[in-house]
């Protein structure tokens, strides 16, 4: 079946502009995660959605970052007033829930802030 998809695959934006990154999780997966990976670095947790529960936003680095998940499916990560330090690969993952915790990652969106 289809895996996790993300769009766009690449995004170049000017400092100060807003960007939206989209994630389509695997159909039926109840949990959705956003991570960030800077060049040569590990994976940094950003935000986590589980079903209809309030999201865990504790990993968001600043109030310029926000995310929503509509209808328990598609998620959008929004970065306002982008800064150069926001440049990274943003990865989305989903997991089935119901006792299954493995995470399936999308290909990521490479964000470059100039």
């Amino acid at each position, binding site marked *: 079946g289809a895996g996790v998809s993300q769009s766009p695959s690449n995004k170049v934006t000017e400092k100060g502009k807003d960007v939206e990154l989209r994630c389509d999780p695997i159909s039926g997966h109840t949990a959705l*995660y956003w991570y960030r990976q800077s060049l040569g670095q590990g994976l940094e947790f950003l935000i*986590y959605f*589980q079903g209809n529960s309030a999201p865990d936003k504790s990993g968001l680095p600043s109030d310029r970052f926000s995310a929503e998940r509509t209808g328990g499916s598609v998620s959008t990560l929004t970065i306002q007033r982008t800064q150069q330090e926001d440049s990274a690969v943003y990865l989305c993952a989903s997991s089935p829930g119901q006792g299954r915790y493995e995470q399936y990652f999308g290909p990521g969106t490479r964000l470059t802030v100039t």
Partner: protein
Amino acid sequence: QQPVQSPQAVILREGEDAVINCSSSKALYSVHWYRQKHGEAPVFLMILLKGGEQKGHDKISASFNEKKQQSSLYLTASQLSYSGTYFCGTEKPQAGTALIFGKGTTLSVSS
């Protein structure tokens, strides 16, 4: 809270074995292992949900020592396809299944 992985890098020839360790200063409830090849997304390898659990996947296996708050990933008779960066992830406290990942161990296998 971030788990510590060791070593940072491993260089092997085909057929050699390697062990990657993941340890935490906090209690571990589960440990996930993922492999990421250059330019690709991380791929799930296995999850260990309780102390003493061991799992295997082809010639890659893992153990979880809950008391020692550590997990080890064993790669036996390594193949070229094993090259990549291996990450362990531990559950972020009170955040369901969101993970805190280690910084990764880069494995390079040559012929």
